[in-house]
């Protein structure tokens, strides 16, 4: 500990130096005047100052505040040494910035004890200062990190203006970062997709999940996936990367190109409302599912709700931050409170609903993120269906052996591969039907050599499918090759399916009796495609489909 001794009497200084060094304080610096003391402090700030009051030139009372100023914010104990013993002088010692005083003649024990006590305080103070420094550093780095994340968020989670205009929305985070997410996209068929999600908790930890969800949403929207496919995919993504105590309540929806048909998957969110002003009617839709990111893939249920809205009907979606607003008596607004308000409001808007909840809340603030999203049923004519002409041509050939053909969902898996192709969004249903027909024919007649005449009777129909099961189970060889090629410039898809059976005369089987519950397959393929032709003695069927929107 470095101690500065300021006294004009050299004898006093010498006495103090020897007293202190005996007590173990060996680093003492001497100053013979106030002026000298200040220039020493300017060079290097000592750890403690012993300051004489009565000196020629500057007195100790004058020097003390100057030393304090030089020390800045740093804790520097100043002990006055004085022979004055009147109360006034002693009080003044403390008033001018001294921490303590010691009266002459010195008592060695009292002086060293005092110095030790101040040394302790000084160490504590230094410790606090070091911690403050650390805190400041930490604060700065957090602020910097938040700024970076905020930047990323504001660029990654942006809804296109042209799409957003179809939604009336109010999103108010409880903190800087929003654990609620609202994203919307146009669908390739000329409709809309939207997702309103609410992650467990709020703040940055919750908000971070919005990034992968948004990305996946944008990608799936571009591909024109169905709502239940989206729900399954989101669940898979969230299950994989969220910790087990975190999940996302969500509403995933698609609005058909007519602006009226709504397909919804809803899990863990407050009930939604369909409000019709013209019809004075309100319908509630409660979440039938658990939130996303909880259930394992085989437990997950992607079943959707489908309904039609009339023009100007409003679909109201809110997060639980809104329904859980609490008034001064501790009552929650509740889903029912929201419903009542919507019934009684002539001009229902997202901001209006938000303001109502804010007015209801005792604190006029929210503890959780609040989202309100309203879609009004309207014409979506301005959303142009995706034009496939710019898409890249793709081709896939899949050869399935006996092992694959036995899998019950093999067709779905093949079609899933194909649905990755761009430009076929509008014909997913047709493609499913045609591939399914061609595939069934190849498998049931080409490879399993089954006879459709069995299906003549009602019992036979059932028997046919039982027999199919048995034959498929015992099949040892057999393969089917599927080739699918898209040509976006021509707006066509070419399909071919070839089996390794004996082949057969297609045309003979192609005219079903109206009463028969079989034989419609080829007719369907013909009606749905532009062209159908056969090769290799009926072992291979080819067809060309148009991908244009009707």
């Amino acid at each position, binding site marked *: 500990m470095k101690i500065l001794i300021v006294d004009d009497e050299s004898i006093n200084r010498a006495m103090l130096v020897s007293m202190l060094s005996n007590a173990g304080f060996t680093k003492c610096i001497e100053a013979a005047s106030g002026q000298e003391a200040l220039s020493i402090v300017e060079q290097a700030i000592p750890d403690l100052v012993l300051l004489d009051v009565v000196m020629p030139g500057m007195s100790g009372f004058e020097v003390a505040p100057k030393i304090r100023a030089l020390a800045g914010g740093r804790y520097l104990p100043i002990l006055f040494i004085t022979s004055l013993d009147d109360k006034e002088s002693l009080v003044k010692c403390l008033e001018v910035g001294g921490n303590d005083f010691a009266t002459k003649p010195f008592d060695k024990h009292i002086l060293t004890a005092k110095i030790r006590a101040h040394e302790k305080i000084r160490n504590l103070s230094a410790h606090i200062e070091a911690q403050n420094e650390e805190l400041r550093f930490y604060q700065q780095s957090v602020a910097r990190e938040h700024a970076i994340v905020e930047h990323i968020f504001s660029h990654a989670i942006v809804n296109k203006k042209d799409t957003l205009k179809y939604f009336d929305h109010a999103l108010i985070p409880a903190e800087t970062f929003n654990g609620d997410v609202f994203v919307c996209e146009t669908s390739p068929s000329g409709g809309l997709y939207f997702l309103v999600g609410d992650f467990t908790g709020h703040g940055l930890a919750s908000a971070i999940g919005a990034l992968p969800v948004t990305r996946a949403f944008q990608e799936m929207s571009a591909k024109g996936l169905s709502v*239940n496919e989206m729900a399954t995919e989101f669940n898979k993504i969230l299950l994989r990367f969220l910790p087990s105590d975190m999940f996302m309540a969500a509403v995933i929806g698609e609005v058909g190109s007519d602006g009226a048909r709504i397909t919804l998957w809803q899990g863990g969110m407050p009930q939604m409302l369909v409000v019709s002003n013209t019809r004075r009617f309100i319908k509630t839709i409660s979440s039938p599912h658990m939130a996303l990111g909880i259930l394992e893939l085989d437990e997950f249920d992607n079943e959707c709700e489908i309904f039609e809205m009339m023009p100007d009907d409003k679909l109201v979606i809110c997060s639980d931050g809104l329904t859980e607003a609490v008034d001064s008596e501790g009552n929650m607004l509740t889903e029912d409170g929201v419903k009542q308000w919507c019934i009684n409001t002539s001009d229902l808007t997202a901001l209006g609903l938000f303001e109502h909840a804010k007015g209801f809340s005792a604190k006029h603030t929210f503890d959780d993120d609040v989202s309100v999203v309203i879609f009004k049923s309207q014409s979506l004519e301005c959303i142009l269906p995706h034009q496939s002409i710019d898409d890249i041509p793709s081709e896939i050939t899949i050869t399935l052996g006996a092992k694959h053909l036995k899998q019950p969902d093999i067709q779905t898996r093949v079609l899933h591969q194909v649905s990755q192709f761009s430009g076929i969004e509008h014909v997913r*249903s047709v493609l499913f*039907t045609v591939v399914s027909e061609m595939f069934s024919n190849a498998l049931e007649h080409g490879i399993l050599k089954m006879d459709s005449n069995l299906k003549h009777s009602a019992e036979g129909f059932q028997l046919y499918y039982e027999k199919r099961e048995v034959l498929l189970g015992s099949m040892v060889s057999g393969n089917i090759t599927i080739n699918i090629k898209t040509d976006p410039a021509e707006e066509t898809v070419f399909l071919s399916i070839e089996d390794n059976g004996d082949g057969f005369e297609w045309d003979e089987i192609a005219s079903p009796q109206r009463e028969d*519950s079989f034989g*419609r397959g080829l007719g369907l393929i013909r009606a*749905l495609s532009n062209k159908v032709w056969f090769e290799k003695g009926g072992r291979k069927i080819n067809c060309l489909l148009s991908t244009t929107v009707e």
Partner: protein
Amino acid sequence: MNVTTDNVDGKLTLTIAMGEKFDFSQVESFRSAYQDLDEGVRHIAVDLGKTEYMDSSALGMLLNMQKVLSERTLTYSIENSRPPVERILKISRFDKKFSIC
């Protein structure tokens, strides 16, 4: 798939609501939907509101249902079908056997 029996317009009606896909994988469950049909049922409605994908085996299943229940006095309807599904029903002239609404 969801099966309910309700009184609709004074007629006891069995409603079979199909899921996203209606193909041969539903053979068993579709049949069981009408297997032990209540004596009082006068109408069977097949709701295809959720069905996006369908093939001819589904058509076969629908016709087979009528065949199995031919001894009974019943009317049949197919409801809420989406455009692609409706197209398949139209191509197959199903309006002759079902009222399509």
